[in-house]
């Protein structure tokens, strides 16, 4: 590895390569429950050319490469399971272009959600992008690479990967490719009408290449926002509530929360409905239409809209939702992982029921919820487990709960999202053999030496 380290230093500069024990320790783990593995080196490239050179070197030497954005995936996807190089993209943090009229931004592969948000607020206050409920250091590219979702996923077209207008990626053999309109003309405005090759890098968890630039859709930013909180006594009506409210097309974001904490919320699932508008009149109209869509429910007095005083609204408004992160440390032990399941909205009651059973069985604290994707086309249901790293028994029980939740998700007809390596194997066991063969052929073609994030999406 000595010689490789020297070559890496020659490519990116000495400051941006490390094999020190403390760096290796940090990059060997995330906040979740997956087994840590040390990398052999951590490299921070500053340009596409540097990424290409690193990848060529790694490919030549058959050294694994694990691309990493914010390192917040929680399910171990950036843990170097077979050692090698962790390619930390944070230096590639330039915002290359914002096209105000066509509403897209082109950013480098290490640009974080927070940086783009701040940039748009300052320079393009009429525009915004869809933000995941993750800390602001989560990256745009990392998030689309795992099919992330966010606060505009309900209203503006679904998963963040569906908001990608173009990609520049470095293949496992070192070539840089552009996909989408940017491959043919100067603009990064669309993936259509060309053959859609961006899918080779979306949802693959970094096993097919490195995203070095990305075009992402921006959306109008209305001047006002408000929150409606619909409280029920049962999860059973949530799918129909979601169906009705998404049918109005008046809500910007919808998140269901089924939480054991705080105590007053236990047993009372709520639906957080964000509404945006440019005027009081528009807001009143939208809120009125949403209320009307569920009138027959609240007239029974078995569920209804909860008044939210102004001083409480900030808890529910804003992206990312800050209060969600409070649950992440509810056990005060610095441990947090969740199973995010992409599943049909009608599966929500079953997912809740399974989640409660699993939490009770393994005596773990579980908060559940769901972000509505598209107009209720599906949801990202989450079973979030906070645990105390200082409590080995608590960690072990949480790990068992996670594994069981993955299996329960598949049994229910959903698919675990950004699943950890064992969860990926659960998925692959259910997958059509033809699909697996195709995935394997694509990977063999793109990555003949199997250097990209090995241990992930490996069909056995």
């Amino acid at each position, binding site marked *: 590895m000595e010689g490789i380290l020297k070559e890496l230093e020659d490519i990116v500069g000495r400051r941006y390569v490390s094999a020190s024990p403390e760096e290796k320790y940090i990059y060997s783990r995330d906040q979740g429950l997956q087994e840590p593995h040390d990398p052999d080196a951590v490299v921070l490239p500053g340009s596409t050319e540097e990424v290409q050179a690193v990848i060529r070197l790694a490919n030549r030497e058959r050294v694994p490469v694990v691309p990493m954005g914010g390192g917040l995936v929680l399910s171990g996807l950036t843990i170097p399971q077979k050692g090698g190089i962790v390619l930390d993209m944070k230096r590639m943090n330039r915002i290359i272009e914002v096209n105000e009229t066509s509403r897209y931004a082109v950013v480098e592969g290490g640009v974080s959600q927070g940086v783009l948000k701040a940039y748009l607020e300052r320079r393009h206050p009429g525009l915004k992008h869809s933000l995941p409920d993750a800390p602001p250091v989560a990256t745009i590219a990392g998030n689309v690479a795992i099919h992330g979702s966010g606060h505009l996923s309900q209203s503006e077209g679904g998963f963040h990967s569906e908001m990608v207008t173009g990609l520049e990626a470095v293949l496992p053999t070192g070539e840089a490719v552009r996909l989408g309109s940017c491959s043919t003309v100067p603009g990064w405005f669309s993936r259509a009408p060309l053959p859609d090759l961006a899918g080779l890098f979306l949802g693959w968890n970094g096993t097919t290449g490195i995203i070095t630039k990305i075009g992402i859709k921006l959306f109008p930013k209305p001047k006002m926002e408000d929150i409606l909180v619909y409280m029920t006594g049962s999860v059973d009506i949530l799918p129909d509530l979601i169906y009705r409210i998404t049918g109005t097309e008046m809500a910007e974001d919808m998140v269901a929360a089924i939480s054991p904490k705080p*105590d007053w919320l236990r047993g009372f699932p709520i639906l957080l409905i964000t509404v945006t508008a440019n005027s009081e009149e528009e807001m009143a109209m939208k809120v009125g239409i949403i209320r009307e869509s569920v009138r027959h429910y609240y007239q029974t007095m078995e569920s209804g809209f909860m008044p939210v005083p102004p001083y409480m609204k900030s808890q529910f408004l804003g992206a990312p939702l800050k209060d969600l992160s409070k649950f992440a440390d509810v056990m005060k032990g610095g441990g947090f992982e969740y199973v995010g399941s992409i599943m049909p909205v009608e599966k929500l009651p079953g997912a809740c029921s399974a989640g409660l059973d699993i939490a009770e069985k393994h005596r773990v604290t579980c908060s559940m919820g769901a972000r509505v994707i598209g107009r209720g086309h599906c949801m990202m249901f989450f079973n979030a487990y906070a645990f105390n790293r200082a409590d080995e028994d608590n960690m072990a029980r949480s790990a068992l709960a996670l594994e069981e939740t993955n299996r329960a998700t598949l049994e229910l007809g959903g698919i675990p999202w950004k699943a950890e390596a064992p969860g990926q194997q659960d998925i692959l066991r259910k997958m059509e053999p033809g699909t697996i063969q195709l995935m394997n052929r694509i990977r063999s073609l793109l990555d003949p030496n199997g250097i990209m994030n090995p241990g992930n999406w490996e069909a056995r």
Partner: protein
Amino acid sequence: MEILNFKPELCAACATVDCLMKCQYIDIDLEHAREESLRISRGEDSEVLRKCVTCYACEEYCPFGNHPFYRIVDLQEQLDLLPAPRPLAESQVRMMAPRGTISKKPVSFPLVDLCAFPMLKGGIRGSLFSGVSVIDGMDIFCNLMFLHFARSSVIRERLPQITKSISSCYLEEDATREVICYHDECYGTYTSWAPAYGVDVPFRPVHLFQYLHERLLHLKDKIKPLNLTVAYQRPCSARLIPEMEHYVDDIFSLIGVKRAERRYDRGSALCCGGVMEAQQRFELAAENQEKNIADMKQCGATHAVFNCPFCFYTLMGKTMKEGITPVLMVDLCHMALGE
């Protein structure tokens, strides 16, 4: 369990049925009103139980002090006729539950009870409140809000312990045993609801306005008349304690404020609409809010004065949009003292 001191014979003999005839939300003729009143006094179902928006006003309208509103709420609960969605009521019952963490602590007097509104502490300052101690928290929350949720039982269950806690934790050293109630709701609990149900209150509640009036008299030389025309937003709980109403005029007079002649003030005060939103009566809530704001504008008020924090939060944004400054009564008094 405490029982409401309600006399059916008074309703049977009532000629005017003011409780229903004066109701701003139920359109009813005298004969019909009498029938419904008798149903209620007999403990039977009545359309009134479903139409009631829990504005408290009939407590004030009843010429006999026979507690028609408390009776309505008791019946709503007995018959499970919910004015607000069940999950909202149940979650509020939990959210506002006593925490059992209250303990004795040294306090100076007078003692100001902020109930469940610690966010109002900022108003307890300056020469108006020099030397006072503030108490607040769920262990001393009066719980009267559950009248809006048909949950008298919650008040009955919690209030005896709450009054006992206030007395034993804060008042043992105090000969006057006075507690200044910031919110009309607390004062109404201790001086109207508690006696109606025979709950002992082992201290002397003092309404905030009475205290403010006395302090302003004491500080009279410091007052600079504000020369403002203000709209007073009378809260629902003021209906329980109409004997305190004159203090609003007395305070305004002392600080040089003109109480605008609103259509919706005093006996005709109109609910801020906040509770109606919890009851899912959105159109009515919006209508009340529009009426209140239009009324404030029409009478030339530059400021809207509140004492109830819930009314304040419900209407503050709408008043500001119309160029009317929302202000709490205590802050209006601070303004007059130049503080």
